[in-house]
């Protein structure tokens, strides 16, 4: 796949080559996405920290073989989910299995997210991955616009240097750009753009998944 002018490509290449500032920029852009993915699993604060740390540590080593930087958000989503599930299954493993113990049933139910929650989570992932792709100025403006409690345009103007009268048009352009990001247009075009099974991570985790399938069949 040709990444074209995917804005994250140069950051990934630079971070893989040793540029720590580029890595920090990647972290700043993609932390909300990772936070969103891990928050779905009702892990403890400590477990969430461990999951995130594992994902970041592993990503540092895999930057070099991320041949398609466009696969980065999907890599983060896939690895974040997989590591979170590991924690859930380890937690269960440490409790002897008792078919009469209702906590097993609860744990099993937790695995089956209601369809509505799943769709909402996917929308959030797409939006946060899209946000990560935007130029800094547009990203910062949108983040200020969604602050809770809301900021006045005067305050936003003070923080960004954008004139009050320009905030409306700038917001419109930023949202238009958000719709056009790879992350969101991939979601909107559906299976053709981004298969439901995260193929985007294929160059990294696909091989591992295939191996584990084979191992299971042995």
């Amino acid at each position: 796949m040709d990444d074209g002018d995917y804005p994250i490509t140069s950051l990934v290449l630079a971070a893989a080559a040793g540029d720590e500032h580029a890595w920090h920029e990647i972290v700043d852009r993609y932390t909300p996405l990772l936070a969103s993915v891990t928050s779905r699993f009702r892990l403890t604060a400590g477990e969430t920290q461990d999951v995130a740390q594992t994902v970041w540590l592993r990503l540092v080593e895999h930057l070099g073989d991320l041949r398609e930087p466009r696969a980065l958000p999907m890599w983060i989503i896939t690895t974040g989910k997989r590591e979170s599930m590991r924690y859930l299954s380890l937690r269960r493993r440490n409790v002897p299995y008792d078919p009469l113990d209702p906590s097993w049933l609860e744990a099993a139910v937790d695995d089956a997210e209601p369809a509505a929650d799943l769709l909402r989570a996917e929308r959030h992932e797409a939006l946060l991955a899209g946000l990560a792709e935007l130029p800094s100025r547009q990203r910062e403006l949108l983040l200020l616009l969604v602050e809770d409690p809301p900021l006045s345009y005067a305050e936003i103007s003070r923080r960004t240097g954008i004139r009050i009268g320009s905030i409306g048009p700038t917001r419109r352009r930023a949202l238009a750009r958000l719709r056009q990001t790879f992350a969101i247009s991939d979601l909107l075009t559906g299976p053709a753009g981004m298969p439901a099974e995260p193929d985007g991570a294929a160059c990294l985790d696909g091989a591992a998944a295939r191996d584990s399938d084979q191992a299971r069949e042995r």
Partner: protein
Amino acid sequence: MGVSQHRWDDDQHLLDDLADAVREAAPLVGSLAEQGKGAYAWRTVDQDLLLASLSFDSSLERAQQRRSDSGDGRVLVFTAAPLSLELEVMTDRVVGQIIPPGPGEIRVETAGGATFLVEADDAGFFELPDKPRGPVRLRCDTPSGRLVTDWVRL
């Protein structure tokens, strides 16, 4: 997906959904970003070192399969052809083997900065003195090559 498509045609709806997503993630962002930045210090710059990806983890098998072998150790396999490393994680101990079987030195690194060394015997078997907490990785030095595993929690 069609729902999102039409809903997101509208600026205010798109911004509302974005606000929802950002706010849900917000409480975790500070601490996770800090960890992310710290992770770079662990970047491996050794070009001769093979990166062994976690290629199998019995804890991610389907629940039913897992229950049938409940009580056995959790098995992890890290592969970096031609070498691989197999681990069995039990309640309070961790044993492993270098494949193909042969002697070597294993260095366990924790994300907290602690490291310790264990020797693998002539058949490649080794045992960790303790089950580490939090993310760890294993560096393996053998006469036929060197590898470092993916970070993982045992």
